[in-house]
Structure formats: structure tokens, C-alpha cells
């Protein structure tokens, strides 16, 4: 009994240390998306030079929806990955979040335009409907128009190869 009482604090300490240690590996800033497995919220945003980008477009084929802005620091870093994704034949759509059309245009002229369709969300209301907390964020939308995955922050080439591309291929194979 005495020995047990002696060991108890050690067990408690190891347990607490393990629990806190596990906490260190988690990102406390990552918020779970409310949209996973739910339909993409309805929106119809004016295009920058082309047609309106509407949520109804996201049907029939898995697509990526990238929320970005010319003022976003991490977006130029992510942009080559988006270009590569588009070149590999996966459709990428964009929402320019609270951005001036001339700034978005200058950004695309400088870094290239991987977007199959682009909407301007100048009020930021669509971004709120999407639960966006910062740019860039990218949604994977399946054939039925449901959100299946949300990436917060820039997509790295490794993430595209290891995580998102396999998911896109799996969604393509889905009925």
C-alpha cells in the first residue's frame, strides 16, 4: 500500500507529461471545418474578367476551390503548386477574397493564372459562408458538390502528392 502511494505520483506525472507531450504535436490554431461532407454553400460571385463563378459549377467532377488574395503573404508561395495541379489536369477554381480587381489582375499577370474560373468576393461574405479564417485556404469538392477536405494555409508540393492528389483520384473514381 505504501509503495503504491509512492508510485502513484510518478504514474500521474508520466500520464500528464504524455498528455501534454501529445498536445505539443497538435496545432491549436487548426480549426475543424464545419463543411466537411456537407454541400458547398451557395454563392454566385462576379468574375474578374470572365463569367460569374457560381457554386452550381461544382458538380459532376471533383474540383479544387482556392481562396486567395493578392495581399496574402503565403499565396505567391502556393501559386506554383496550383499551376502544377492545373497542368496535371485537375480543375482549380479561385475566389479572390476581399481583393481589388486590379490587384488580383496584377497578381495573376505576375504569377500566372491557374484558375479555370475566378470569382471576386469583395464583401467577404462568401468567405464567411465557407468558414474561411485566413488566406490561402483550399476546399476539395466532390462530384456531388460536397466539401470533402479543407486545407488551411498554402498547399506544399508534398501535400499535393501525398494527400490531396490521391484524394482527388479517389473522388474521380467515386460513382
Amino acid at each position, binding site marked *: 500500500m505504501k509503495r503504491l502511494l509512492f508510485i502513484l505520483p510518478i504514474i500521474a506525472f508520466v500520464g500528464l507529461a504524455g498528455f501534454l507531450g501529445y498536445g505539443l504535436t497538435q496545432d491549436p*490554431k487548426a480549426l475543424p471545418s*464545419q463543411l466537411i461532407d456537407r454541400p458547398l454553400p451557395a454563392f454566385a460571385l462576379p468574375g474578374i474578367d470572365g463569367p460569374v463563378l457560381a457554386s452550381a459549377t461544382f458538380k459532376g467532377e471533383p474540383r479544387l476551390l482556392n481562396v486567395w488574395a493578392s495581399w496574402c503573404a503565403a499565396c505567391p508561395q502556393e501559386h506554383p503548386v496550383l499551376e502544377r495541379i492545373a497542368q496535371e489536369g485537375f480543375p482549380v477554381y479561385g475566389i479572390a477574397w476581399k481583393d481589388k480587381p486590379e490587384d488580383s489582375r496584377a497578381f495573376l499577370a505576375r504569377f500566372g493564372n491557374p484558375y479555370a474560373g475566378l470569382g471576386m468576393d469583395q*464583401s467577404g461574405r462568401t468567405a*464567411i*459562408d*465557407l*468558414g474561411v*479564417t*485566413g488566406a490561402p485556404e483550399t476546399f476539395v469538392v466532390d462530384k456531388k458538390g460536397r466539401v470533402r477536405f479543407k486545407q488551411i494555409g498554402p498547399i506544399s508540393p508534398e501535400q499535393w502528392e501525398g494527400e490531396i492528389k490521391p484524394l482527388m483520384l479517389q473522388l474521380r473514381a467515386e460513382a
Partner: protein
Amino acid sequence: MTRLLLALMLAPMLAIAAPAAAVLPDEMLPDPAQEHRARAISKDLRCVVCQNQSIDDSDAPLARDLRLLVREQIAKGKSDAEVRDYVVARYGNFVLLKPPVEGDTLLLWAGPFAVLILGAIGIALWQRRKPATSSADAPLSEAERAELDRLR
């Protein structure tokens, strides 16, 4: 003396100085009652960019958008609960600075009480065991008395 005077002068000023909120005049609703409700709701909603501030306190552009959204919903005649649900539907329970009591928040809410009860049980056990192990109050044995007499 001058210090005391200064302190006396400063005290009422500090007492009336409310913490500065981020709400700008152009965001406010014309109806003071509605604006009051909007402020109360905003104080309970977390700014998702800065995370440990309410949207009422935060200068982040997204916090401003959410404040405007809260006011827009109130102006539409939505109740406080409906406005809160509208934001929770988009950002989840995380935006509530006071999360509701649910399955996954049970540990958060019940944890402190569980620790308190465990501590109380521990103390009760310890207290009950104490008299048995303590020999301070027991009368001296014959051998001890003899030893004491020898030392005297």
C-alpha cells in the same frame, strides 16, 4: 503627499475608462437597443484570426466582417440565439468563447469539479489514516518511562 493626490485624481479616471472596443461608428446600428444586443453577442464570439480576442475587441478585418454580419442579422429581426447559430453553423462551436456543455466539451466543464472531488476524497482518506499512524498522543509505555527516568 503629491503622490497620494495624483493617485486620488487618477483613480476615478481609471474607474470610468472602459476597455477600448474595436467597433467603429460606421458599423453601429441606428437603434441603440439593437446595437446593445449586437455588442453583447459580439463579446461572446471569438475572432477566428486572433483566437483569444472576441470580435468586439479585435481590429482584424475578418472580425469587422463578422461584426457587420451580426448587426445585419439583428436588423433582419433574428433573435440572439439565431444570430449565434448562424455564426456557429459556419465556424463551429470554436467561435463561442463560452462553449456549450456537450459530449466533447464534458471534460472541459466537468474536469475541475472531478479534480476537486478527487482531492476531497484524498484528503478524507489521509485524515482518517493519520491517527492510526501517529503515536504522539499515546501514553508512554513502561520501557519508555524507564528510559526517561534514567535520563533524568
